[in-house]
């Protein structure tokens, strides 16, 4: 699976943000102001970047099918399963009959 440029950027930004948030020593132990700024700042970066990249990706990767088409496929799969179960039951009955 090849990744698009925007996908690579999403991964890079996500990983770097996570690493950045976890730099040891920052903010210092006991530093209240530092802890509040650090956490609120990274909170904003995490949330803004990920929602922005996700929105961009959803625009690039458009759904090929509508919900109705997916549901129709699911229903077909369900019917096939039901037929399989019915066939298995019939075969079991036939086998019992032979015995």
């Amino acid at each position, binding site marked *: 699976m090849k990744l698009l440029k925007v996908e690579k950027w999403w991964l890079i930004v996500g990983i770097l943000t996570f690493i950045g948030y976890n730099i040891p020593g920052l903010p210092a132990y006991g530093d*209240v102001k530092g802890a509040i700024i650090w956490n609120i700042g990274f909170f904003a970066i995490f949330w803004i970047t990920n929602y922005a990249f996700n929105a961009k990706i959803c625009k690039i990767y458009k759904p090929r099918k509508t919900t109705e088409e997916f549901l129709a496929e699911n229903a077909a799969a369900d019917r096939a399963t039901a037929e399989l179960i019915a066939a298995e039951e019939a075969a079991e009955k036939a086998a019992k009959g032979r015995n």
Partner: protein
Amino acid sequence: MLSFSEFWITVACYIVFILGIGAYVNYRNSKKVGAGGLFASKLNWPQAIMTYIASLMSVWLFFAGPGGYYKGGFVYWMSEMTWLPMYMILAHFVTNKVWALSRKRAYVTPTDFYCDRFQGKGVALLRVLVGLVFLISAFPYVTSVIAAIAQGAVRVSDGSINYGMVCLIIGIAMVVFTTLGGFKSVALTDTIQGIVYMIVIWLIAFVALWIGFKGSLSDCVKAIVDNEGTAFFSYPGPRGWVPYGYRFGYPFALLIGYSVMLPHIFVRACYSGRDLNTQRKLALHTPWIRVFVWTGCFIVGIVCFGMLPNIATEDAEYIIPFLIEGNIFPNNPIFAHVLMIAFFCGACGVGLSTADSYLLSAASIVMDDFIVNIFGIKMTQKRRTLVGRIVILLVGLIGVLMALDPPDLIADMIMFSIGMTMPLFPIMVIGMYWKKATTTAAWISVVTGMLGIWWTYMVWGQGGTYYGAVAMLISTVTMVVVSLLTYKKESNEKFFTDMQAGINEIYVIDPAAK
């Protein structure tokens, strides 16, 4: 605080409620063609989101969560809030792609995906190992939930209720409910309970804040600073719980283990969406819903810290009953009773919604991975359902028996389960994206990953800080090195062709994108 009769009436009402849903779903499924099996079903987006969220809530919501924020403070809460939108990365790059293929392959257990990707010699061993890891991770989870509910019962009744009796009754109700209705009934109760208990946790938060500080969060903060200093708002937290290592290890475990790899979560995130819209809404909405839920817990934690700052660590998981009993009851006894009942029902509800999901996953692993695939016992669908129900019964009873001898800290048990599943993540991702990843490397990586878990917990003694992070690194390195050493042109082309076809079937990629 609750009398013997109040307590048992509450339990009886709750059990009737969940068994009623189980029976209803069972009845509906019997009337409907192809309504989904005992272990799998396709869900619409509200159900998919709520069953995912409710499965995560578990005993965190009413026990470990508020207790954790009480012990860890503001920085502990923020360490959870920051990374939550990264779930969207996992959804796009991992879970939605697994989902695309699962539509073609009808996977049931998480192991199915691994054994579809990794074929040939060693695949049976891989199935056993991955299945065992997922299965073993289930027991601490189920056990901790039942134990937490029973310990909660003892607290809310001032010790007048027998712990073992609650374990047995709640455990049996859970097993019967799961056996009766299967995946659909679990998803339905998760949806209803999830919404109700989000409201309950916020109700408790508001009432506690009102009674303690006349509804003013700033007064609560001021009281904490005046009485206990500023440690609650800085690293490493008021009780030294959140050093830098923990700030990394804990959110990382939650991102990988808790959000994707726990088997009941894996099934929900990767297999259960009925369409692409459901999968996307799951990724889009669960982060902010999680913020909403855990912020309610945080408010409870901070208010409790403001009012009762000296609760012992082992009692911190029971701060809600402490709060109701010590602070709300003297002001308004009737309302305190109502809240205590809501708390206990909530604890049962969110706990069981996780435990039954886990139970279902564990039983499906025993059934599909071991009985059908490893031992090769062929069964009709009808018989599979019957045997599956018996397996749920057995797995559940083991969980109940384990809960009779409870752990000291519920959070520790849950986090161990989460850590255990983490080394399996790189095996899956490398397998998905790298054709040279081999089956031999996959099973060796499972083994080295589990050795890494053992080393982190037992030798290094840092399991409570790094969880499965080091083991995950070990399994990643093993996976790459052993793959390079053992790679031969394997017949895995079909997997990649099908995966690409699955992706092409659900997406139209903008031709202008590079």
